[in-house]
C-alpha cells in the first residue's frame, strides 16, 4: 500500500501532469510578479485570467488559428492592464479596490460576451487545442522523454517566458527601472525616468501574461470554456509570488512544487478511493497556498513602494 504511494513519483505521467498543471500558474505568477516588482498589486488577476481563457478560446472557435488566439488573449489582457494602470498608477487610486473592480469587470464582460455569442449552448462546444509535439530524439529517452519532451508548444512557451522574464528583470535597463519603481520611485524620477510610465507598462505586460495563463486552460489543458474555470488560480498565483520572494526563477520552482502536489493528490485520491471525500482533495491547493504564505512570512521582504501610489512632483 505504502509502496503504491511512492510508486506514483516514478511514473512519467505524474511528472508530465505536474508540468501541465504548473503552466497556467507559471504565466499568472510571472504576470503578477512583474506588476508587484513595479510597485503595483494587481488583484485583477483572477478576472483577467478568466477573460483570457474566454477570448483565446472564442477566437479559435470563430476561426482564428491557435497562435493568433493566444495573441488576442494577451492583447485583451493588456487592455485590462491599461485600465488597471489608469486607475492605480496614473490616478493613484487604491490598488486593492481597483484590482477587485477589474476582476469583477473582466469576468463579467467575459461571461456576458460568451452568453451573447453562444446563447443556446448548454454543453460547452469544443475546439481543437494545441497538440503535443514530440521533440526529436529527446522524446524517445525512456521516462524523461515522456515526462519532459512530449508537451504542447504552449507548455514550452511557459518555460521560455520564465527565462525571458528573468532576463528582462535582471539583465536589462527596463528591468532595473521596474525594480526601482517598486523599491524607490523617487530615485527613479531623479534619473529623469517617468515612474508612472514604467509602472503602467509593467502592469500592462503583467496583465497580458495573466490572460495568456488563462488561455492555456482553454487552449492547451482543456478544449472548452466553462464558467468559473479559473477557480481561484489567480489568487493562488498571488500567494506564489510571495512564496517566490518576487523572483522569477523561484516562481517557476514554486509553481512546479505546487502543481506536483496537486498532480500527486489526484493520483493518491485514486488509491484511497472514496475513503476521503473528493472535496477535501480539491481544498488542498487553497490550504497549501495559505501554508506557503505562512512559511514565507518570516522572510518576506515586500517591494518597499508596493501599494504606495506615486505622484509626480510630490515630495514624500
Amino acid at each position, binding site marked *: 500500500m505504502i509502496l503504491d504511494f511512492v510508486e506514483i513519483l516514478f511514473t512519467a505521467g505524474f511528472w508530465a501532469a505536474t508540468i501541465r498543471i504548473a503552466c497556467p500558474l507559471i504565466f499568472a505568477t510571472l504576470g503578477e510578479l512583474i506588476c508587484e516588482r513595479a510597485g503595483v498589486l494587481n488583484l485583477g488577476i483572477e478576472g483577467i485570467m478568466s477573460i483570457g481563457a474566454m477570448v483565446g478560446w472564442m477566437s479559435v472557435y470563430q476561426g482564428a488559428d491557435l497562435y493568433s488566439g493566444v495573441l488576442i488573449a494577451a492583447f485583451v489582457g493588456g487592455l485590462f492592464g491599461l485600465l488597471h494602470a489608469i486607475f492605480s498608477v496614473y490616478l493613484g487610486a487604491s490598488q486593492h479596490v481597483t484590482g477587485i473592480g477589474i476582476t469583477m469587470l473582466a469576468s463579467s464582460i467575459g461571461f456576458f460576451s460568451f452568453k451573447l455569442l453562444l446563447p443556446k449552448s448548454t454543453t460547452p462546444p469544443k475546439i481543437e487545442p494545441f497538440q503535443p509535439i514530440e521533440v526529436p530524439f529527446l522524446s524517445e529517452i525512456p521516462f524523461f522523454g515522456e515526462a519532459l519532451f512530449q508537451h504542447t508548444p504552449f507548455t514550452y512557451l511557459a518555460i521560455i517566458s520564465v527565462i525571458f522574464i528573468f532576463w528582462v528583470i535582471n539583465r536589462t535597463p527596463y528591468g532595473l527601472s521596474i525594480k526601482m519603481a517598486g523599491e524607490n520611485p523617487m530615485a527613479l524620477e531623479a534619473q529623469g525616468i517617468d515612474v508612472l510610465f514604467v509602472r503602467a507598462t509593467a502592469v500592462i505586460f503583467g496583465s497580458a501574461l495573466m490572460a495568456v495563463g488563462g488561455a492555456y486552460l482553454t487552449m492547451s489543458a482543456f478544449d472548452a470554456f466553462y464558467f468559473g474555470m479559473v477557480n481561484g488560480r489567480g489568487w493562488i498565483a498571488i500567494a506564489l509570488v510571495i512564496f517566490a520572494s518576487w523572483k522569477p526563477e523561484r516562481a517557476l520552482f514554486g509553481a512546479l512544487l505546487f502543481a506536483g502536489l496537486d498532480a500527486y493528490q489526484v493520483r493518491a485520491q485514486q488509491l484511497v478511493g472514496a475513503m476521503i471525500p473528493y472535496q477535501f482533495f480539491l481544498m488542498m491547493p487553497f490550504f497549501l497556498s495559505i501554508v506557503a504564505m505562512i512559511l514565507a512570512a518570516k522572510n518576506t521582504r515586500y517591494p518597499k513602494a508596493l501599494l504606495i501610489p506615486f505622484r509626480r*512632483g510630490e515630495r514624500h
Partner: protein
Amino acid sequence: MFDFRLEQRRFISPWLIVFAPVGAVMFSFLVASILILLAGANPLESYFKLFLGAFGSKNALAETLTRSTPIILTGLAAAIAFRAKFWNIGAEGQLYAGALAVTFFGTGLIELPTLLMIPFLFLMGALAGGLLLLPLVLLRNYYRVDEVVTTLLTNFIIVLLVGYLLEGPWKDPMALGWPQGESVIDEGILPQIVSRTRLHLGFIISIGTAMIIWLLLSKTVLGYRIKAVGINPAASHHAGVPVVKTVIIVALLSGGMAGMAGVTETAGLKGYLTLDLSPGFGYAGIAVAMLAGLHPIGVIFSGIFLASIYVGADAMSRAVNVPTYLADVIVALTVLFVLFSIVILKFRIVFGGVKP
C-alpha cells in the same frame, strides 16, 4: 506619456460630493449601454425594463428588498473592514460559515421558542463568520500574512466544505437527490413581513444592523479608533490607540455581519442550506460598500440600489434578450467609477507642465 499631474484640492464643493456617486452610477449605465447595443437591443428600453423589473410592482419591489437583505449585511462587513484598511474579501466564505451554523444548530439540535430561537441563530451565524476570520486576522497581525489573499482563498475552502457536507453527512434524505441541508425548524424561520411576497424579517434586521454600526462608528470610542487606524496605524499607535486589538474587533464585526447574511438566506429566504445559497453576495458587498462611501447608512441605499439592478436584470433579460451578466458588468463599472470620483474629489487634474 500622459502629460498631467494631480493637484490636491483646497476646497471641495459640496455640489461635487453629492454628484460624485450619482455621476458614477450614471456613467456606469452609459458605458454598459454599449454592451446592450452590441446585444442588438435598445439601451433606453432595456433600462426601462430593468427599472420595471425592480420597482414596477409590489412583488418586484418586495423581491428587490429581499435581495438587498444579504448584500446590505455583506456591504456593512466590507465597509467597517475597509474603514480600518483591513481588506476582508472573504465575506462570501463567512456568509457560508453563518449558513453552516444555522444548519448545525437550527435543524433540530437546539429547540427554543421563536423569540429566542431567531436571535440565537443570528448569534451563532455571526460567531461562525467572525471565528472564520479570526485566525486570518491573527496571522495578519502577528505574522504579517496578507489578509487579501488568505480571505480570498478561504472562500474556496468553505464552499468546498459546504459541498462535502451537503453531499455527505448533512444531506437532507427527504430532498429528492438535490444536495441540500435539512430544513430549519419552524421556530427558527424568519417570518414574512409583507404578505404574499418573499420579504422576511431579515430585511428589518439588516437595516437595524446598519443603524447600530452607524452609532458605533460615529458615537463611540471604538468608532473613533477604527477611523484612526484606517488613516494612519503608526500614528494611532503613538497616540495610544490599541491598533492590533482594534483590527481584531473590526475583523470579528466584519466577519460576524457577513455570517448574519448567511443566516438571513438560510433561515429567511430558503429555509435550508443549498450549494447556490449565495451567487456572489460576498463580492457584491464590496461594491455596495464602495458606492456608499463606506458609510453604514449609505450602505442601506446602495444595497437596495444594487439589488434592484440584479433583480431588474432578470426581468430585462427575459424581455429584451440581453444576458443577465449585464447586471454584474454595471456593478463592476460602478466600483471603478466610484473610485474615479474619489480621486476627482481629492485632486484636480492639471494638464501640461510635466517635464518628460
